[in-house]
């Protein structure tokens, strides 16, 4: 009995030693891959940061209104954020590559899913960035046009345009990522529809007089107003 226990114990230890000997090189390989990955990711981060600084990405981001959003959320600058994102994505990718060397059966599927997810993440980020650019551009264009047309609620109109475009960009990005795509779509449709309905009701019921005056001005322009404008040239 005692001998049997000892034999089993020795066998177990021998098996464990064999397993360790078997896994040790793989573990070393994983650590080497992770370390090299870290170095490559770091180099990539430096390279991306320099490229973004050279191309005045921060200016573009400022124009797009992204800098303001990041500032409000107490996040680092757009250049720093993008370079850090590149670092972590690259390093995590290398780390997972290293983990895959270990040959753990359950992890393989998740690792390949992660690599398939990367292009979608990139596309979603691009969509978000250009969505912000478009939101800033069109909201400013609306603001300027409304102010120059002497429209009283110019800021509100401009903000509404900005919010709608941002929601639209986010819903597209989430759809690309496959994260709560349906929820986002429904949320967008609800917000957009509600905004339009609110505007219609506000203009139709609350602004009857305004609508009347607006239409009168458009259809029966009176002489006095025509003479109101300066002749610039």
């Amino acid at each position, binding site marked *: 009995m005692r001998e049997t226990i000892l034999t089993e114990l020795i066998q177990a230890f021998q098996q464990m030693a064999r397993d360790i000997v078997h896994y040790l090189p793989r573990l070393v390989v994983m650590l080497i891959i992770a370390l090299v990955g870290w170095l490559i990711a770091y180099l990539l981060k430096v390279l991306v940061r320099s490229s973004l600084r050279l191309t005045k990405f921060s200016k573009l981001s400022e*124009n797009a209104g992204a800098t303001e959003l990041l500032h409000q959320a107490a996040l680092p600058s757009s250049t720093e954020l993008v370079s850090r994102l590149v670092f972590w994505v690259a390093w995590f990718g290398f780390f997972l590559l290293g983990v895959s060397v270990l040959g753990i059966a359950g992890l393989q599927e998740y690792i390949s899913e992660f690599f398939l997810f990367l292009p979608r993440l990139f596309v979603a980020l691009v969509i978000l960035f250009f969505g912000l650019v478009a939101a800033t*551009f069109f909201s*400013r*264009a609306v*603001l*300027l*046009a*409304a*102010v*120059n047309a*002497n429209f*009283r609620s*110019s*800021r509100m109109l401009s903000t509404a345009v900005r919010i709608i475009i941002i929601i639209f960009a986010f819903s597209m990005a989430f759809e690309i990522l496959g994260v709560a795509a349906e929820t986002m779509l429904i949320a967008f449709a609800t917000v957009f529809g509600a905004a339009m309905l609110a505007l219609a009701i506000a203009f139709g019921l609350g602004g009857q007089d305004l609508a009347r005056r607006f239409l009168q001005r458009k259809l029966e322009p009176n002489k006095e*107003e*025509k*003479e*109101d*404008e*300066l*002749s*610039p*040239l």
Partner: protein
Amino acid sequence: MAEETLLNDDFLRQLINVGEVDIVVGLSTHNHARTIGPVIAAIQAGILKCFPRERVAIINADGGSQDGTTELVERASIDDVWRESKVFALRTLHSISVRYDRTPDPGKALQTILAATDLLRAKTCVLISPESTTIEPDWLQRLARPVYDENFDLVCPIYARQRSDGALMRNLLYPMTRSIYGCRIREPYGSEFAISGRLVTDFLAKGISNDDWGRMGPEIAVTVTAIVGKYRVCQAFLGAKAHPGRGTQDVVGVMRRTVGALFSSMDSNFGMWSVVSGSELPPTFGKPPEIEPEGSRINRKRLLDMFAAGVAQLEPVLRSILSPSMLGELQRIAALGINEFEYPAELWTRTVFEFVASYHKSIINRDHIIQALVPLYRGRSLTFLTENRNGNGENIETREEALCADFERLKPYLLKIWADGK
């Protein structure tokens, strides 16, 4: 080269039939049937009276008129004028109309007229606005003679104006052109002007009409090209300026065509204007016109409201264009009442220069920068109206000179912020 791309076969055929001419009178039209008749009649009378021996062609470049403008131009016969005139033309007067596009494009229209001038080897091209209902036959002579007889290359007009008239011209375009390019041209964006064949050829050869500023404001582009190219520039006094579109003019569109083109011209001509200091008065022909009696009532309160609302609502946009101290000053004056309100000349000059620098650096979309200037222009116009309300010609002239002096004096400030990173 320009002719090949701009002039269609039919138009070319008509031009070839005309042969060479001495003077081309160009008209750029779009639905001007209401005003074109008297303008054509005055042009024809001017030709009969002042250029009976010269070969003259009227070229009408039309941007898709639907009201029969082109037919009116083509139908206009010299016989109508002969009946009333004692002078007879010794040459045939050709009148050609061409549709350069289905939609109006001032750049293309001017290019078409200039290309035709170049092809007809005309010595002089006189551009007349189809809206100039106040035109007199003598205008043609006043504009064309300096080019035709005295070898000038560009003749700009000087109009008799009302006190409140030409606020943009008198507060921005003239002082700015004068301080930047060193030439005291009162109307850098003239509705009427004359240009020599030499300048036409150079203008077309350089392809300026295809540049941003050439497309935006072809009239300004001609003036700037003449000054920068050291061509012989002069001015001629004409009569009262017509304002058929008063009250319905699109201020933003006008700003784009004039201020936008002027700002844009500064990018490619930096080497020239950065070394210019002071300004020179070009030769000026004719008798200075009297100030016209005021014919319109401007709502000053509305101007102030639009200025104040613009400064308040556009704050985020203005913050990116202007320095903090400038924005603070604007916010301070925007809070003033109608009786205390004043947008001083120096503050206005600095505002314009900061806009120029931001435009050059494309801080935001360039068209947005021009649009953001519109409410501030209204504020300055209010001060301009208030100052000139009871002034005589001399007072008005003195104030205009003071504004121009500020633009010239503060030019180093522009050069500084032009080069600075924001």
